[in-house]
């Protein structure tokens, strides 16, 4: 009996903070509404424009590719902002959890789990909206690359949120990556070959996504780059967040 009680208590210690973190997000109904509205706006209203820009630049991008890119950007940027605001808005709650006996590492795990959940939701919303516009040739690869891009931005949001103290400055820092990815290194303006552009978060996810959308074979080493990038950013984010949580 006592054993059951101990294991139940242990389960509660794992599920309670997780539920609390999830609630932090969905108790603001508008966050959930925007999770659907923003991908819809980006995909529906913007994809035609993107398609026409690419014709001007003769980059060979099709409207399908532009729509896929819109979906990937929406999922990634939404998750990035969510990761960032989760960290900046949760310092007090994390401090209380540490005082209640949770290890900083556990809090890091919980926070990343929540980002994985909401990154999945943002990806699912974007993908379902995308399905109303096109029929992907390879659902698994397309969904996977969008989800990885979302996780990558989520980790980037955590990293910025852990390192930059203010929400305004952190939003500006996140905006840097957002504009660089969507407007400067975008394949709409030709193959991005400039120095350092391949270091941008969605550089390789976008490359893979475009090949998958077109049903063309692509270099599998790009998956490796995406995985390596996600591992590096994720590790840096976990270290930075762990240090911040441990400081209290």
């Amino acid at each position, binding site marked *: 009996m006592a054993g059951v009680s101990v294991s139940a208590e242990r389960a509660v210690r794992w599920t309670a903070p997780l539920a609390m973190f999830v609630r932090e997000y969905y108790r*603001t109904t*508008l*966050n959930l509404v*925007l999770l659907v509205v*923003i991908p819809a*706006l*980006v995909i529906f*209203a*913007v994809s035609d*424009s*993107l398609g*026409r*820009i690419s014709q*001007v*630049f003769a980059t060979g991008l099709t409207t399908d590719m532009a729509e896929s890119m819109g979906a990937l950007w929406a999922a990634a*940027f*939404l998750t990035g*902002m*969510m990761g960032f*605001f989760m960290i*900046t*808005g949760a310092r007090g709650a994390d401090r209380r959890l540490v005082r209640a006996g949770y290890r900083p590492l556990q809090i890091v795990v919980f926070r990343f789990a929540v980002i994985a959940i909401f990154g999945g939701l943002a990806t699912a919303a974007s993908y379902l909206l995308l399905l109303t516009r096109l029929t992907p040739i390879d659902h698994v690869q397309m969904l996977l690359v969008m989800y990885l891009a979302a996780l990558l931005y989520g980790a980037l949001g955590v990293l910025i949120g852990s390192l*930059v103290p*203010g*929400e*305004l*400055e952190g*939003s*500006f*820092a996140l*905006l*840097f990556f*957002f*504009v*660089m990815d*969507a*407007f*400067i*290194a975008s394949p709409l*303006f*030709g193959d*991005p070959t*400039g120095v350092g552009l391949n270091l941008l978060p969605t550089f390789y996810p976008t490359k893979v996504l475009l090949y998958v959308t077109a049903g063309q074979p692509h270099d599998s080493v790009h998956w490796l780059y995406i995985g390596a990038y996600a591992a590096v950013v994720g590790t840096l984010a976990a270290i930075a967040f762990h240090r911040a949580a441990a400081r209290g």
Partner: protein
Amino acid sequence: MFAQLATATAMGLRQHLRNALFVVLLVGLPVAFITLSFARTPDVPFAITVHEGGAAVSAPVGMRDLHGAIMVPMTVSFLAGILGMFVMIVSREGDRRLVRAGFPALNLLLARLVVIAGLSLAITAVSVLVTLVDFRPEQLGLFFLVNLVSALQYAFLGAAVGMFLSPMSGTYLMFFAPMIDIGLIQNPMFPRESVDWWVRLLPGYRPMDVLLDVSFTPSFDELSALLVSLLYLAALAALGLLAFRRAIAGPR
């Protein structure tokens, strides 16, 4: 009244400007965005329709210059919009207390709007200066003015948003609104003569007409578009005022 306004404005400006990272980003982001957009855009010939002497004419412009010119209102709208929102978010709790303590609500609002306008002016100045390295607009003074109008429109919109929304919801909106409005829907690479009615209602529509005229033609032909843009700006400032009254100075 003036002394209170001056004190509140000075304190608001100091609060932001003493943050070195904020200043670095405020200057560094326009430099990065605009310089790189000129560097990255292929110099493809392209023609846009502008008004010259009352007639619509086709003006040949380089794609690099066109993209660079569009990048200025986009950059200032992004930055000013987020800034306007956070100026209000950061100060709304303190402002509520100040109003309860007897500080005139109008003075407080004016101080916040002056802070937002001052920082928007700085963002616009940096953005226009960095643009001049790669591109010289035909009518520089009006080019600056119309970009300032774009910055202030989104700054006041951000201020109104910042009175009610959470930082995350507000940032969602203020990241995607300029991207969709100025970066894509108002993009002059698409025909602008027969756009849908709702496109004309967006903040970026009229300023884009003015921007194209002052960037690529030697004479000013978009006075009515500029006046409508200024009216739109006044309406957004009024929206900010109403939002402030409701959130800070309203009945408790």
